[in-house]
């Protein structure tokens, strides 16, 4: 019988790291302030006490260095878990990710791999301003050779991280920091995984009435906004089916397509700027797969095409009050 505990996202991720470090001696955590301090968000708290200097490494402020070092460690046979303190800081290491990490297996004909999980907090809504709020997922989804994960619940966070650590490919693990402590839920103690590449239907649309229903694709912190908007829309008699993508790439297009074929209407919600955001790819895939089922143009409710604003962050984020009108308009199209 599995014991279940209430955890938030931070605790669930911490639990997964501890569990895997105990289970697999190859797992090494490195990053800025991940050791003694336990990470700026306390995700790695207690790891240094338990596993020591050799496996929990405080690094200099150099993302290129952190990632380059991690790639070397991985080639050597370790399983590094570098933390980039904010996804906004990842760009100095982008070259390492794009040119080395993503291509190592390909380039060596499968002889070498740089297996690692890069953990980094993403998203806005914490009054972090433009350097602490970005959602750069599409930059990595676009790079062939990477897997990209973004959990919304503590259960999924632990299960997905454990699955990511055991997956043969490098995985970018995006942690929605706005809900680090707000998302709480039951998390089983001990080992379990949530399969990568599988979305989850969070809310099912009841199609018995024959009234228009809308599929909403969301992930991370915006999942909860989608749920809030869907509840409001339900008061107006509009049903929504919400798909939490969980793994952004490889995307679970089968689950998405099944839902869109059922409703004929789809809204993608993401924090990243609209243009060339992941919503664009999702809608392109939907057009390829579900064109003849569409009852309305697919809609993106996304961040604006501006740098992330500090003072206007609640206007920038695609919160429920922006999702609701999109649901109504799409349902009534």
């Amino acid at each position: 019988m599995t014991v279940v505990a209430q955890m938030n996202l931070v605790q669930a991720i911490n639990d997964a790291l501890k569990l895997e470090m105990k289970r697999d001696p190859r797992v090494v955590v490195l990053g800025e302030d991940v050791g003694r301090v336990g990470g700026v968000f306390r995700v790695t708290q207690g790891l240094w006490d338990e596993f020591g200097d050799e496996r929990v490494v405080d690094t200099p402020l150099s993302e290129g260095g952190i990632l380059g070092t991690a790639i070397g460690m991985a080639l050597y046979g370790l399983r590094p878990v570098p933390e980039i303190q904010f996804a906004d800081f990842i760009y100095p290491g982008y070259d390492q990710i794009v040119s080395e990490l993503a291509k190592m297996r390909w380039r060596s004909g499968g002889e070498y791999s740089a297996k690692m999980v890069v953990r980094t907090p993403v998203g806005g809504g914490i009054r972090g301003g433009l350097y602490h709020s970005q959602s750069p997922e599409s930059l990595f989804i676009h790079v062939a050779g990477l897997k990209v994960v973004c959990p919304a619940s503590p259960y999924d966070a632990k299960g997905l991280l454990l699955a990511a650590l055991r997956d043969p490919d490098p995985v970018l693990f995006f942690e929605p920091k706005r809900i680090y402590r707000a998302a709480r839920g039951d998390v089983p103690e001990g080992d379990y995984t949530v399969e990568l590449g599988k979305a989850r239907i969070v809310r099912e649309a009841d199609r018995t009435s024959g009234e228009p229903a809308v599929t909403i694709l969301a992930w991370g912190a915006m999942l909860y906004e989608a749920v809030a908007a869907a509840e409001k829309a339900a008061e107006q008699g509009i049903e929504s089916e919400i798909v939490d993508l969980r793994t952004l790439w490889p995307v679970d297009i089968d689950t998405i397509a099944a839902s869109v074929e059922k409703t004929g209407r789809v809204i993608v919600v993401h924090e990243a700027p609209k243009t060339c955001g992941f919503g664009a790819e999702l809608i392109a895939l939907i057009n390829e797969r579900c064109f003849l089922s569409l009852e309305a143009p697919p809609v993106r409710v996304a961040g604006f095409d501006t740098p992330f604003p500090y003072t206007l962050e609640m206007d920038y984020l695609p919160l429920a009050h922006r999702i609701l009108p999109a649901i109504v308009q799409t349902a009534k199209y």
Partner: protein
Amino acid sequence: MARWEFKLPDIGEGVTEGEIVAWHIKPGDVVKEDAPMVEVMTDKATVMITSPRAGKIVETRGEIGTIVVVHGVLVVYEVDGEATAAAPAHTANGHANGNGAPSKSEPAATAVGDIKETLPGMSVSGASAGGSSGASAQVQYFNDKPLATPATRKLARDMNVDLRSVPPTGAQGRVTKTDVEAFAKSPTVAPAAPAAAVAAAPPVAAPGHAPVKISAPTAAQSALEERVPFAGMRRKIAQKMSQSKNTAAHFTFVEECDVGKLKELRARLKPRAEAQGVKLSFLPFIVKAVVAGLKKHPILNTALDETTNELVYRKYYNIGMAASTDAGLMVPVIKDADRKSVLDIARDIERLAADAKSGKAKVEDLQGSTFTITSLGADGGLFATPIINFPEVGILGIHQIKQKPVVRDGQIVVGEVMLLSLSFDHRIVDGHVGAAFAYDVIRWLEDPEKLFLEMV
């Protein structure tokens, strides 16, 4: 020069089509911005559409009497500005046309492979010049490219329905799934004739029976028949009347009203009103009595929201005034009659009636009524059974005042008798409530001074 299409704009209020009443331009004309262009009659009003831009008119689409759907092309212009869509022939570098085979392709030696000077597909020269082939051969509205969502297109394909022949009823002139289904079910699915969709409006069939087909007994007799499109206002009136009769449970209450005192009062006030340039009829007084009655019996000023199963009590009093015009029945609306003086109401009535008669009524004057009065006038008959202006719940028909013998204090005297024919929706208004409303209105009309007590 470029061609530019002007489409019948969506003027709102659920108007989906309009009938061309008059053209003020013809092909070849050069128009300025805002020049009067075409008059279009919708089921709400006749609208003069002015030219949104300057240019030369290449083509006008639709004869007088033609029904155009919203977003259907009305006028084609030739305007200054962006070039036509056709790409000019591209013969740069002297490449051979079409076959994509480069005439010369010498690899340039570089460090990272060979950079070809040209590659397949790079000689864009296939497009024929002069693609703007002038006006299209035949007048088409939505026929060649009907608007529909992919799901509707799939449905039409599966049902073997040609979307070009389905009359669109959706937003922006879209063919909806319901349109396709209705079209497939209709017994007279004709092979898609181009331009058929222009005038083909959904048949006005009462629910529950298939559209009736009328045909002459013999072919020879068909010459004795004339077929006129059942369209525009007439069709809209038919739809509204059927909807009301098929939905509301009509009951009609008729009673006499002796308006001798009202007649005297009006005679006394008439010169004063005239001094202010207002023609004072009986109607403003009747409107005031009705408003007082609606305030006392608020159920008469409701409407049923069938989507939410809620009875909507209107706390405003907009009195519709049925008016016959050459085009057909119209109901201009006296807004906020409770807050207007008798003189103001008289002014409104004059203006609204004149606008309705001349076909210039504005959309906003023809909507929003909460209760309707219909003046049956000299040809009103003994009594009538008015049809409710749905979704209102009551309508008051007023008849001509006639001198009739009435018994007063045991004596037969000459009374100024007006009949009132009130129809109510019995789903919402009970008989005794309707009667109580009627008797209150009658009492105020018989003793108009009492109305002062009710006035705001």
